[in-house]
């Protein structure tokens, strides 16, 4: 039953984040997604188009060309494409050769993310991309960035669903509850998602939590963590610190990571974090940036080393009980992949 994980292991019939809203303007943006080259641009209507980044004529990347009146003009011979991918002009002749077009991909913009579907177009109509409204609604302050890793995207999901590496890889970023009193991990599964939740007994905050929230360092707080594999393209963490006695506030931090495979061995992480406290405080934003970015950068050499030395091990090592959520994520991806494996009538 097991699909070959660790190689070309990303489902095509899935929405992936290709860019953030602010990155897509009235200019040509080249991206490599799922081992394909795609060019994105925003039309004057505000809608975003995504086309194969390869001229149908002599295969020059269209992103080297220019955008004129919502049409892409190839840098080599001026072949011109509409946002649908249809070639509408060949400057050297009066008619357009039959069948001259490039593939266009369905796009959905759910700010701050721009989602692209590279699989079966008709299937895209019955699936909506995930949405995290906290990343654009008032009452939240957000920050974010992007980072590329030389690691398969499932290594990133596996890492995101796992808290037991924190005492080893991120020891200065955790509170005492992680080591002294780890609570039971509650895993909740549905057909295409899995999440874990755990609630810690009251413990003092980690240094960065105290810096960010301004809560006193000398008393204990109840904390709750949830991490969700939303789809092969998205992982969302929620971290709540409950206010001390008499304070009903919940200090919530969300850490949202879009994992977009560039190819089987490289992943683009487009991340955003949101918080519902210290909304105007720039220094808190910078402190949190260091925490979120720093955590990923600390994981990076380990994940890249696994990729470099044992790419075939992905999804197949010995597992511990705490890996239950990650195992489930592999199973979900496995099921999606086996649904896509076409049985052809021609042998």
């Amino acid at each position, binding site marked *: 039953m097991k699909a070959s994980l660790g190689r070309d292991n990303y489902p095509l019939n899935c929405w992936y984040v290709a860019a953030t809203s602010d990155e897509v303007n009235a200019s040509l943006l080249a991206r490599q997604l799922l081992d394909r080259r795609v060019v994105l641009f925003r039309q004057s209507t505000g809608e975003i188009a995504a086309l194969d980044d390869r001229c149908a004529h002599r295969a020059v990347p269209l992103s080297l060309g220019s955008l004129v009146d919502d049409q892409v003009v190839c840098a080599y011979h001026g072949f011109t494409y509409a946002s649908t991918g249809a070639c509408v002009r060949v400057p050297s002749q009066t008619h357009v050769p039959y069948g001259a077009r490039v593939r266009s991909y369905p796009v959905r913009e759910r700010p701050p993310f721009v989602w692209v579907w590279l699989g*079966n177009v008709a299937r895209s109509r019955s699936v909506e991309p995930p949405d995290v409204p906290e990343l654009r609604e008032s009452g939240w302050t957000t920050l974010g960035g992007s980072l590329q890793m030389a690691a398969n995207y499932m290594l990133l999901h596996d890492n995101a669903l796992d808290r037991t590496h924190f005492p080893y890889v991120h*020891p200065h970023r955790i509170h005492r509850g992680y080591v002294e009193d*780890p609570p*039971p991990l509650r895993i909740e*599964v*549905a057909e295409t*998602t899995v999440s874990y939740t755990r609630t810690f007994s009251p413990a003092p905050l980690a240094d960065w939590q105290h810096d960010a929230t301004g809560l006193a360092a000398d008393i204990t707080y109840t904390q709750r963590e949830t991490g969700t594999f939303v789809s092969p393209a998205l992982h969302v963490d929620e971290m709540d610190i409950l206010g001390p006695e008499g304070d009903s506030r919940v200090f919530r931090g969300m850490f949202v990571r879009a994992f977009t495979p560039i190819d089987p061995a490289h992943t683009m992480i487009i991340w955003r974090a949101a918080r519902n406290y210290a909304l105007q405080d720039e220094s808190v934003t910078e402190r949190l940036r260091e925490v979120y970015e720093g955590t990923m950068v600390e994981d990076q050499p380990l994940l890249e080393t696994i990729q470099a030395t044992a790419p075939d091990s992905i999804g197949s090592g010995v597992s511990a*009980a705490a890996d239950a959520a990650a195992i489930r994520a592999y199973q979900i991806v496995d099921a999606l992949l086996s649904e896509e494996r076409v049985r052809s009538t021609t042998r």
Partner: protein
Amino acid sequence: MTLGDAPTTAMSTVFSERRADLVVTARNMRAEGVISLTLADPTGAKLPAWTPGAHIDVLLDDTVVRQYSLCGSPGDQHNWRIGVLLDPGGRGGSRRVHETMNVGDAVAVRGPRNHFPLLAADRYVSIAGGIGIAPMLPMLEAATDAGAAWQLFYGGRSRESMAFVGELARYGDRVTLWPEDTRGMLPLDEILSSPSDGVLIYCCGPEGLLTATERQCAAWPVGALHVERFAAKPQPEAAVGGDSAFEVVCRRSGVTVMVPPDKSIIEVLEENGVSVLSSCLEGVCGTCETAVLAGTPDHRDSLLTQEERETNEYMMVCVGRALSDRLELDL
């Protein structure tokens, strides 16, 4: 704390399936004895995503759980639709649904999960009997969207008893209706007369239809037939002398237990603190599917295909037992 400090207490893991309290937002008569219910979150929140062939548990009370296929559109993230056949001879679950669930009523559900996924193919043959039409509806929609060729053969007691016929009308002659009172039994020998690579067969319906289809597919390529059962498959009588005891080793949790003849693996594991996700306890829902690392399981579920059984890679620990003295499981 310094790098490399090990946790001083072991962390435990508790598995559960997503549970939700929904509300009935529509109830419609679909055919003689068949209603459809539309379920939604009372706050209007999105429901978890699912794929064609998925089903949910409806929790009628603490002990009575029934599985129903989702038969709406997977693109509708706010509503789930199920079809429920009143089975007067059944265990009473469908009667409770028919008699007590009305618009505005609360319904507790678990899932969704999918053990009848629509695999990609160029051609499909779908065979539905009675309420077995339910999972076919989203599958046919997906197959149409994917541009695959397909045919549906839909049998029922009588035309009046066949639900969702109106919704199938848009598919024209790709759908063949076969009411038993005027046309007899579905002609499976004709429908499945020419085994072919690249054609997948999906079948859902009463046990008689499933067994007959399985028999008819013996000459088809391994893996071509996919069936979904909502009642346990009749099992051959236990060997003379009944079941025997065997040992189960849970490699991940490091627990070893003895399973006596009168208890299931899952019962004994739970008594010993190993949490296994489970639902139907009859070998039909697939929730407790567990990887087998060593030993030979005695499969007694209604879910794994013959081909899957022979690999002995997975088993349903709610009904399955062991042919070997010892089983090692990935738990």
